[in-house]
């Protein structure tokens, strides 16, 4: 009975085709021509330079000991144009360079239920490119490029007009944007590492109802950007070392109903930059060692900033206007100097986190030259006691005495 079952299932899966030196097929393309839906191709270790490889059947392709598929710097290397393809364990390298049709290392055209697993992508124009994809899994790939200029290189994982993607455990380095989402919905980005990309570690536009969780962004040119989006969930990510003019740990522009929880922002020029962000919840984040902890522009509304740790930042908060439509409460500020006589864990006097000097610097950046001089300290102190220039509503009425353990 069991044997019959196995036989049955094997015939349902399809045939097995071996590709490689000394096997039935020497190259991948003829093997793919021969294959039918449901077949499995095992590709042996070796170098395959066959121009553009188009997968237009529902096949499983498995590389054994990391076979290398090389695009010779002229072709798009692998194009997946069929549903239900599994592409696993290859090294894909040297795709062509063209700004007209954006060749990628692995490009998915208008397909569903595709899985791209455990590949190594080296020196491609775009790494993995998904357009009109549905239910696509991109998991445990290592994507590396050696881009120098923004215009000369594509993105690591580029997703456009797709739905229900899972981007998990990938490692992207040296592309323009590590991970790029445009018009992508209901997707998750989980446990990826995106480092040293030229522009953004993660670039996110017009992509509603997505989540990114436990990712690690380090040393990206301009940090992470999330723009023109609704309903995004950002949990447990680490944003590190984005330094420079116009570099942000995370840039939030025209966002609404997002949740930023449990993230770490370390050593960025500006940790969070909010512009036109509405109804957001910023909760339980660690914001430490940044130039500016939170830059919140006056056009942000109904945001709740609570239970965060602000430590060792040059400026905790900065804004560009006098209108305050956001709520700050129960945060820990290491610059708070109040007391707690009733021992309820929160300070008895309110804390005004907005330093007058950060407001001055917002308008006259050159004033940074006098930062930490006695005059400026004096100015800050007086302003903290009796706010005159900074909006009085910009206040944390229940500042915490001790930092949260996060």
């Amino acid at each position, binding site marked *: 009975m069991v044997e019959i079952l196995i036989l049955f299932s094997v015939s349902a899966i399809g045939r097995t085709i071996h590709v490689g030196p000394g096997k039935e097929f020497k190259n991948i393309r003829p093997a793919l021509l021969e294959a039918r839906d449901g077949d499995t191709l095992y590709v042996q270790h070796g170098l395959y330079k066959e121009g553009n490889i188009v997968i237009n059947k529902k096949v499983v392709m498995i590389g054994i000991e990391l076979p290398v598929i090389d695009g010779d710097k002229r072709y798009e290397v692998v194009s997946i144009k069929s549903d239900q393809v599994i592409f696993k364990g290859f090294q894909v390298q040297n795709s062509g360079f063209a700004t007209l049709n954006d060749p990628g290392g692995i490009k998915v055209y208008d397909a569903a239920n595709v899985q791209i697993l455990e590949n190594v992508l080296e020196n491609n124009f775009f790494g993995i490119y998904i357009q009109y994809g549905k239910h696509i899994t991109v998991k445990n790939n290592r994507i590396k490029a050696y881009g120098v200029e923004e215009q000369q290189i594509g993105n690591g994982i580029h997703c456009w007009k797709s739905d229900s993607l899972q981007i998990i455990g990938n490692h992207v380095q040296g592309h323009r944007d590590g991970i790029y989402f445009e018009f992508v919905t209901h997707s998750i980005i989980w446990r990826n590492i995106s480092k040293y990309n030229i522009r953004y570690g993660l670039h996110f536009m017009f992509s509603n109802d997505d989540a990114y969780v436990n990712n690690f962004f380090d040393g990206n040119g301009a940090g992470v950007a999330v723009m023109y989006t609704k309903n995004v969930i950002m949990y447990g990510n680490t944003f590190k070392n984005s330094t420079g003019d116009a570099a942000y740990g995370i840039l939030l522009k025209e966002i609404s109903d997002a949740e930023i929880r449990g993230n770490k922002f370390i050593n960025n*020029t500006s940790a969070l930059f909010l512009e036109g962000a509405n109804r957001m919840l910023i909760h339980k984040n660690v914001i430490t060692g940044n*130039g500016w902890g939170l830059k919140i522009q006056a056009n942000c509304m109904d945001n709740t900033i609570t239970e965060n740790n602000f430590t060792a930042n040059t400026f905790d908060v900065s804004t560009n206007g006098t209108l305050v439509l956001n709520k700050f409460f129960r945060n820990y500020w290491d610059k708070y100097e109040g007391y707690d006589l009733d021992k309820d864990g929160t300070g008895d006097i309110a804390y005004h986190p907005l330093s007058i000097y950060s407001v001055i610097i917002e308008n006259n950046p050159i004033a*940074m*030259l006098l930062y930490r*001089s006695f005059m*400026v300290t004096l100015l800050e102190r007086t302003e903290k006691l009796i706010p005159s220039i900074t909006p009085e509503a910009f206040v944390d009425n229940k500042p915490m005495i001790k930092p949260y353990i996060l």
Partner: protein
Amino acid sequence: MKNITKFVISDIMRNRIILFYLLMLCLFSWSIFSLEDNTSKGIMSLLNIVLLTVPLVSIIFSNIYMYNSAEFIELLVSQPVKRSTIWKSIFIGLSVALMAAFFIGIGIPVLFFVPGLTGATFIVTGMLITAIFVSIAMLCSILMRDKARGIGLSIILWLFLSLIYDGLVLFFMFQYADYPIEKPMAILTALNPVDLARIHVLLQVDTEALMGYTGAIFKKMFGTGPGMMVSLALMVVWVAGPFYLSLRLFDKKDL
């Protein structure tokens, strides 16, 4: 020259005030570092001491010392030693003694808690600040024969360099905010040794905030290799300039 320097140093080292100064610095630095788990915040608090207390003590102490040793100087002048030798030895003695107090009081804890470039820059800057204010004090003492006036002048100079100058620069900045004042501002701040010292240390500690737009100007003016050299050189000029002036005056002065 060697003997006079030695004498001055040993004379100052026995002084109670300098011991008190040393103890006070010790107390400040050890307590700041042991209360603060974030060492870069500790360095910033210490910076306030370096920018206010160290100049004040250096200038007042040296000034009073100069007046108190007026008779000693007269005695030395009657001996077959060159006047410039006397003046130089006193300057070296004073600065070495005060720098030693600074090094023991603040330098050692800083090296202990913040080893590396940041700590080293901090200590070098503090020592230069000490030397600068010793040389200014000597100039004050030669300009004013009267002790009260001399001390008054040195207090005013300290007040001006540590506090008022920044206020004036800030005022200038607000007045001309609509113009491209980056360069004049940078030059103005570079003219004051206290500001120079502050920027020097900030460039090592508060790097994140300085990476932005201002950072570019900062870095261009002070941060890069040549910029650092220029600001160090300017501080050395601040040591040498007032001292040289006082030396010339002392050479010609009718005691």
